[in-house]
């Protein structure tokens, strides 16, 4: 069952110039993307910086004004403010931010930060509210003495966990995680990620997991969408994307994952350069004449790629053949 259905979402930022400050051009940050998130799954949205993945995430929580297209939740289009208010939408859809420090108000105590969504949506009594905050702190592994402290007194990992506690406070159904661990060091990354997984298991939350770190996405997500220049270039399961990538952009992203095996350094370097060479040579066939991705074409029930129909089938067949040999 789909919890969220995104249909042909477009977010264009106007460029104003001239004496009358009129709109003279547009930046298509998100340019017509469609995908669905199923209940209880973690959906990965991957792309380089500037590809529009954060804008997509913000549109889903209702922070961004959408140019056209729709986002359906419980059959209602929540790109309209009216519908969001009527559904108490943000009670069910919350967000975890990338920068844990700037996403926590430095002037508020932890208790007030975590209780903020509770005060707006649940109207608990003072006692119940404090109890709930203490439970949330316990769930994210922080002591009760954090209650009256300020955000700057915590480490990055602890702060991000406070952000997670705030996001799960109202027991949401979907959490948009906008690069939740990219500002943290590796050991803390693992800690926070495992912890997000635990919460997902316990509460049955879906995540829209936005990241540029393919290693993290592989660890977290069942379904993945690759985004490039405001459009989706490839959608598929974890296996589709990591083991059978079809679009050159996906291959390039995968080639960029650092390898720790030092012995085969030369071989990795060679394969990386080969992918880059193909990208440089065949860019024209993979993108349309405006340098944009093509519309998505399904090559299997789970796997879609943004290529002309013929090329997509051809690549898919080559991929199956290659696998049969291996």
């Amino acid at each position, binding site marked *: 069952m789909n919890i969220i259905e995104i249909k042909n979402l477009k977010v264009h930022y106007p460029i104003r110039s001239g004496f009358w400050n009129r709109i003279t051009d547009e930046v298509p940050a998100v340019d017509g993307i469609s995908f669905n998130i199923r209940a209880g799954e973690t959906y990965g949205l991957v792309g380089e910086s500037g590809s529009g993945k954060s804008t997509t995430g913000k549109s889903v929580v209702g922070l961004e004004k959408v140019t056209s297209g729709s986002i359906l939740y419980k059959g209602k289009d929540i790109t309209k403010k009216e519908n969001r208010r009527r559904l108490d939408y943000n009670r069910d859809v919350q967000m975890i931010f990338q920068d844990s420090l700037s*996403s926590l*108000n430095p002037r*508020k105590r932890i208790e007030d930060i975590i209780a903020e969504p509770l005060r707006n949506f649940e109207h608990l009594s003072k006692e119940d509210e404090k109890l709930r905050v203490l*439970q949330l702190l316990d769930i994210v592994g922080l002591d009760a*003495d*954090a209650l*009256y*402290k300020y955000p700057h007194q915590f480490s990055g990992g602890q702060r991000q966990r406070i952000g997670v506690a705030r996001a799960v406070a109202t*027991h949401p159904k979907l959490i948009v995680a906008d690069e939740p661990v990219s500002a943290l060091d590796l050991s803390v990354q693992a800690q926070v990620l495992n912890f997000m997984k635990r919460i997902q298991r316990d509460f049955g939350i879906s995540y829209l997991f936005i990241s540029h770190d393919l290693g993290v996405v592989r660890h977290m997500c069942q379904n993945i969408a690759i985004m490039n220049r405001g459009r989706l270039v490839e959608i598929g399961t974890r296996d589709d994307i990591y083991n059978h990538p079809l679009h050159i952009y996906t291959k390039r992203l995968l080639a960029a994952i650092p390898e720790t095996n030092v012995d085969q350094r030369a071989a990795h370097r060679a394969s990386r350069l080969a992918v880059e060479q193909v990208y440089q040579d065949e860019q024209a066939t993979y993108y349309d004449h405006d340098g944009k991705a093509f519309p998505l074409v399904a090559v299997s029930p789970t796997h879609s790629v943004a290529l002309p129909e013929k090329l997509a089938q051809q690549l898919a067949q080559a991929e199956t053949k290659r696998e049969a040999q291996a």
Partner: protein
Amino acid sequence: MAENFNQHSDISAADLTRLSQEAKAEATPSTARIIWDEFKADKPALVALVVVVGFIAFVMIASLFIDTPKMMETNIMNYFDRPGTNGLWLGADSGGRSVAQQLIVGSRNSIGIAIGLTVISSTFGICWGLISGYYNGYVDWGMQRVYDFMMMLPMTMMIIVLVTIIPHYNAITLTLIFSIFYWEGTSRLIRSRTLAESEKDYVAASKTSGTSNLKIIFREIMPNISSLIIVDTTLSFAENIGVETGLSYLGFGLPTQTPSLGTMIANANDPNNITQYWWTWLPAALEIIILCLSISYIGQVIRRAADSSQRQGAAD
């Protein structure tokens, strides 16, 4: 839904009091406590605080015991009495009026106007700047054009004209007239910081937590620019003492029968007074200097207290 959390956490209602006590023991000190620690760490500022508070309290109370109309009566026998003669601590001016009594009543008038003006103009300026900066877009555009129009008006000229038009003006009407013009600088300053602040993630987080816009403006953003607000308010308080004195000095401030620091400094218009009768103007001038310096010292301490990275007081 609450059961859901109960399943995953060992904490139950029974632990509530114990845990909140534990948390209290570890709590960061309150704002008042931090400000007080900051004053204790900065002795000159503590002296400044005592001076300002003591002086304002003294002036407010002492002026209740002075009969102003009687004080302002001319007494030719005391013409330019030196300090200490005829029971006049600070001597008398050309009308034989006690300088010490005028100083007390005049300080009350000037400080009262400065406080009133600061409260009204800063409150208005802060609200204007916050709303303009937060909503941005058309709201900001409209509000900033009003601001531009107000800036275009020549302030001192307008005040002088308004003062001459209004028939029976007193300290309150004068304060209101000043307030029409003195919110502008504050509003621009606050707006610029609000523009930057409302782009931060915690504002977005508050929006997704369902907090209303007004609450975000005044409960989320305003505390975060409080150090700016405090510095601006203290400085404009010091400046506002100057505004009234300056205008009274020129003869367009309070009516002549109402003494103020400005009318007393205006005694220095006469070269004779400057050279021979120094006691008619020097006390008022010294008072303004000491007050303004002390206020800016206090403002610095409060600003440091508001910004945890600048604190000098006891570590938390």
